């Protein structure tokens, strides 16, 4: 699941993720993300911390709760060390500062997402 309010960036990342063989669900803010989460459970979430409405860190908190926590990778356009510290302490797998090498995502996702669901071509979003 990809959460970023910047349409251009979001489209680009979806393109990259698709190219890398993943299926991406997109949301432009936390509310949209929560709406998606009611129907599907992603293997991993890529969240910009500076999204409008509920900020990325709080969305992360929500995703971490419960029996089936979703691993989270955070991203941000600014090099705010305080925010990075908060995010990592709250359990983010990585904190990427934009612009980053987009192919880095492959390594990160493969390393951290529920691996058996992540193989190419599988409909990994369909949970029971």
């Amino acid at each position, binding site marked *: 699941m990809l959460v970023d309010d*910047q349409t251009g960036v979001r489209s680009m990342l979806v*393109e990259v993720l698709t190219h890398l063989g993943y299926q991406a669900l997109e949301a432009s803010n936390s509310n949209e993300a929560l709406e998606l989460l009611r129907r599907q459970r992603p293997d991993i979430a890529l969240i910009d911390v500076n999204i409008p409405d509920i900020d990325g860190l709080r969305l992360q908190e929500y995703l971490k709760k419960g029996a089936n926590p979703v691993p989270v990778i955070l991203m941000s356009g600014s090099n705010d060390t305080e925010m990075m510290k908060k995010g990592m302490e709250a359990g983010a797998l990585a904190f990427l500062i*934009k612009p980053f090498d*987009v192919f880095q995502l492959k390594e990160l996702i493969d390393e951290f997402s529920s691996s058996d669901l992540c193989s190419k071509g599988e409909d990994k979003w369909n949970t029971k």
Partner: protein
Amino acid sequence: MEYKIKRATDENWKVFEKYFAKDAIGDSDVMRREGKHRVIVKSQADESDSEIYDVNISFIKKSDTLKMTMLTIEENSRTSDTRAFTMTEEVMATAIHEIKNPLFAIRGYAQLLHQSFTEDDNRKRYTTLMLNEIDRLHRMTETFLRLGKKRVKNQKKFSVNEAIEEVIKLYGERLKKVKFEKQEQEEYYVNGDRDQLKQVFINLLENALDAVGDTGELKLKIYSGLDKVIVELKDNGPGIKKDDESRVFNAFFTTKIKGTGLGLYICKKIVEEHMGSIDFSSEEGKGTTFFVELPLAK
């Protein structure tokens, strides 16, 4: 134009109120709603007796009321010169920040393109160049953001030697490769913003290292002259071309492929803000020496 200003909880409001009583706002000439405003407060008794303030205001429109969200009064900015407006630092910073997003999108697509070409394809070379230039633009936005940040001067007395030692540590690995020599007569103290002045030495050292490559020689000297401390950094790099000498401190002037042309420009600004001076002497083929002079703390 008349503004209905809703009282903001912001404590800045108090400052605003202090300077511009409600009546005064009605009489004043506010030029733009957002950004830098010139507020002219005319005296009732004497029309020609007016006071002019430069104020930074930003409003967010909420239904029909304008809610004041931020306001700072630039003290001592009473002035009577022409009404040309300047973009505020805040607006600048936002604009620059907004550039970063599309830039990242472009970078991502460029990476996808880059990956799709084989090594012997000329297009691979083009995308490499594209990526380099995108990264350069990005570094420029970062520098602009740093420049745009309000320079809250953190005036403190500190040891120049110590600050420089910290910079040297940052470049430890790269300095090991070159022949690096440091001479200091004694410990010198200056008043100023330690981080900013460290930035000056970082930029100078970075330039010197770039100039000499992996095999050159660098000499750093710290000594005093009259009431000043002088920091001298000498490299045996290619030197600065005669034609370029007058442009070295200009913004956007660079000879480096990956440079932004802002390093030395920033150095000069910072040093001058500290009542110091920066200069260089250079000979093509032999090297360059930069001098930074700063007033010693009393």
